[in-house]
């Protein structure tokens, strides 16, 4: 996983609330191997008309947003199913950061495991970013993980965001959390032994 430092990139504005993970990757593509490139499935149904042609009014289809690496949406982004494919689809399409007014918990956690930074901002800040990206699609947004700030182009104001320190560390260092856990091997083995003694009925014997 690539470490995440500062990202200065353009934005695709998605003025939608409740974008669930079924929209990010419809269920019928969950069986596909990752090697297919999950970007093919990103918003597969939302971005198409009934006849299968691409919708011109869907921001991700518009030429001015093709190089965007930051997606900015309304509240409850990534709710629903735990499918990590929803994040693979974003990552494979080149997104490094998703900004929303609120997130589904499992999606948020899946993002961080794949080097995609989830940033929660108040809706007022999101409105400002949408307006910027709609007025000038080439205007960059700067997301700095170290200082936990988001800065708009040509705007003196910066917006701070909260992130769990552990998630921040994993993202900034591109760490695999299994390695991190295995550093606690001894503590874990001790726990496992005493736990097994305290709760003997939890070892399955069916």
């Amino acid at each position, binding site marked *: 996983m690539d470490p995440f430092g500062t990202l200065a990139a353009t934005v695709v504005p998605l003025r939608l609330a409740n974008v669930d993970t079924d929209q990010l990757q419809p269920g019928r593509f969950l069986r596909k191997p990752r090697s297919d490139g999950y970007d093919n499935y990103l918003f597969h*149904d939302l971005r198409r008309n*009934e006849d299968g042609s691409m919708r011109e009014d869907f921001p991700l289809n518009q030429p001015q947003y093709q190089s965007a690496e930051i997606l900015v949406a309304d509240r*409850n982004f990534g709710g629903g199913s735990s499918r990590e494919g929803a994040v693979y689809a974003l990552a494979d399409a080149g997104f490094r950061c998703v900004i929303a007014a609120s997130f589904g*918990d499992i999606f948020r956690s*899946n993002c961080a495991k794949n080097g995609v930074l989830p940033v929660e901002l108040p809706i007022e800040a999101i409105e400002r970013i949408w307006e910027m990206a709609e007025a000038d699609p080439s205007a960059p947004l700067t997301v700095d993980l170290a200082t936990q700030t988001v800065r708009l182009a040509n705007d003196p104001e910066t917006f701070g965001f909260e992130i769990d320190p552990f998630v921040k560390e994993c993202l900034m260092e591109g760490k695999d959390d299994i390695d991190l*856990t295995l550093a*606690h091997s001894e503590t874990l083995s001790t726990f496992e032994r005493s736990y097994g003694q305290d709760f003997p009925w939890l070892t399955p*014997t069916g």
Partner: protein
Amino acid sequence: MTEQLTLFEKIWRAHTVTARDDGQTLLWIDRHLCHEGSFHAFEKLAMSGRKVRRPDLTFSIADHYVPTRNREVGPDEPEIATMIRLLDEHSRTNGIRQFGLGDPEQGIVHVVGPELGLTQPGIMLVCGDSHTSTHGAFGALAFGIGASEVSHVLATQTLWQKRPRTMRITVDGQLGPHVTAKDLILSVIARIGADGAAGHVIEYAGEAIRGLSMEARMTVCNMSIEAGGRAGMIAPDDTTISWLKGRRYMPKGDDWEAAVAFWRGLKTDEGAVFDREVRLHADEIAPTVTWGTSPEHALPVTAAVPDPSGEANEGRRTTFEKAVDYMGLTPGAPLDGLRVDRVFIGSCTNARIEDLRAAAAILKDRSTKVPTMIVPGSTMVKRQAEQEGLDRIFTGAGAEWLESGCSMCAATNGDMVPPGERCASTTNRNFRGRQGPGSRTHLMSPAMAAAAAVTGTITDVRKLAEG
């Protein structure tokens, strides 16, 4: 003075292996359930050269991709066959007990886990599926995780988590006739929103919750995720203990006695503080249906389709307009009487024996007007329903009685609602396209879905049941 703890806090503490200064906690996992969708995680594990640390605590069950019309995957579905074969291979390679396609105990993972007694009070249980919150009905801390976390659990039998906030939802009084757990949880979601419990673990309490059977409690906890909750839980009581007794993986003899003694202490202490409290009265809850494309778009069946132009908030107005348009609805039209094209009774939310009995009570001596699929939650539920003669009521009414699996809820096995069709469904998600591209889903209880099957329209079940 002793510390006053919530049920959640007691379980969290007992499972803490180590905690960092920043609050991140490494938690021990008692049970890990896998399904066909876990293939990404198994591949990740194999690539890293790691092994499953505790295969004896890991169980795999085929549910998302299994065919429901028979137990053979057709030659025209090679990708589905691969998904089922991969689970089989990964289970064998890693020494994991599997309940695969054709196993007499196969079924939906969240139905089978409790049935087999793999789910127990006080445990931490995870699965790569968001509806893992179901198992909280037994007083377990259970939640869905992504593929990376599944591979972490496989490798270490632990998981890093930040301590969530706590929310107590108290439902006073008793549910009225023909008002069910599904109506209760849809009403909760409508009240607090689809992200209302984000970052929280919910504990359900109050007289109405205590009065629910285990099946009904599972329906409530199952849809905690639809309110954004990390997990939902209900403290174990006599109902829980008598439901679990004698199940395959339950402790036996002295172990059983010790376990029960421990479970009796698994409740929130008087005076313990929650980060948020929500209170409802059961009297306020009517048979409920969803009209839109989020579970928060739920209303009593006696209500009308909302008029988006009446919404003052612009974001909300846009969302409502899109939902009304996608669902093909007329603002202001009554929900009761809205024509449906088909009915689906199934899923980890509502396909247990009680759900099937409730549907059968409505379908008995009546005929379905629209295509109706009934998919039992597990193969054991199927057998029990057949012993009770429910299958004959269903087929006699013209419904299809099928094999167990996720079927038309996840719509990953090929069972789909055709584009533009409206489906009365006992499932958990009415998202755009959830039941197939262009599908229109209305969530409701099994009795309400059966009433819709009989009339071909969304119908207040109380009229049929009492008429």
